[in-house]
């Protein structure tokens, strides 16, 4: 549902770094806690990219599983939405991975393309 707005953010970041060059691939890291539907993100990205240097670019999504760490030292991968520590039951739990939503890199062709930004 929020994938449309997120796809726009990805496109903006990619275009800002493309510098007018044709973009072939956009690499993003998607944390499990962001509740992003991958197919929906790819679909919206493809539509928004039309007519820009990102048209036809592959959106490579790297899923990042969620990892939590408790103040008691316990560390685990989150497989169901429970943010209390399974060992001590405490709530002093921090998310150490899984909240990412980041454009990591783009692959561009070195010949400038003429499509509008």
């Amino acid at each position, binding site marked *: 549902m929020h994938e449309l*707005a997120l796809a726009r953010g990805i496109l903006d*970041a990619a275009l800002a770094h493309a510098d007018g060059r044709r973009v072939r691939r956009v690499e993003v890291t998607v944390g499990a806690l962001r509740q992003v539907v991958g197919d929906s993100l790819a679909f919206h990205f493809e539509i928004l990219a039309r007519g820009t240097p990102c048209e036809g670019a592959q959106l490579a999504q790297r899923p990042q599983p969620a990892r939590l760490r408790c103040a008691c030292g316990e560390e685990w991968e989150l497989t169901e939405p429970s*943010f209390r520590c399974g060992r001590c039951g405490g709530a002093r739990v921090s998310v150490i991975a899984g909240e990412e939503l980041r454009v990591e890199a783009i*692959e561009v062709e070195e010949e400038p393309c003429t499509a509008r930004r």
Partner: protein
Amino acid sequence: MHRTKVKVAQDVLDANDTIARANRADFDAAGVRVVNLMSAPGAGKTTLLERVLADGVVRDEAVRVGVLEGDVQGSLDAERLSALHVPVTQLNTAPGFGGECHLDANMVRAALPELALDEIELLVIENVGNLVCPAEFRVGEDARAMIASVTEGEDKPLKYPLMFRACELVVINKIDLLPHLELSLEDLLANLDRVNPHARHLLVSARTGEGVDAFADWLAEVARREAVPA
């Protein structure tokens, strides 16, 4: 023609967060604290605000409240609230790309000139009814609260952890309906605790007025908070 890899390393929501910080700075400069109020459609955001505003947020202490009403379309909610003689500004998301399902920092920024910030101490932003998207987009608020009505079922914290984790306060609304529902309030609260053990919750019926005072007290508490840089 060869391909080159270009490092980007940029958070997708960076642009939004930058504008949200600018909004926050403007609110701080005006001495206004801001609550971002979110929920599913029909959970009772407007009804709860009507109740609170009709009673006066705090009777023994004058906290002047303004409302920024976010809707995809129309001004029905704003009309309901303006009957209570509080400054209400309508913000429609429809002119955007097909009508956004949430408010973002830029939309709130666009509405800033219309907000009577010098007349209020607290601005409540009633977000678009939606349990997913609004959780992603900061708009410059000091506090985030949500309403979960008991008719939505006890499983919602588990299905929408992003939203339930984004909020410091969860108002459990429509508790007057509990006798008519199969819902287990105990399970709902247990699920909330699993997803966000730090969230405070209030049991409220905006219809009967039960628990509304506690929500009013929370709003007043937010209004008294010191500005913390975003």
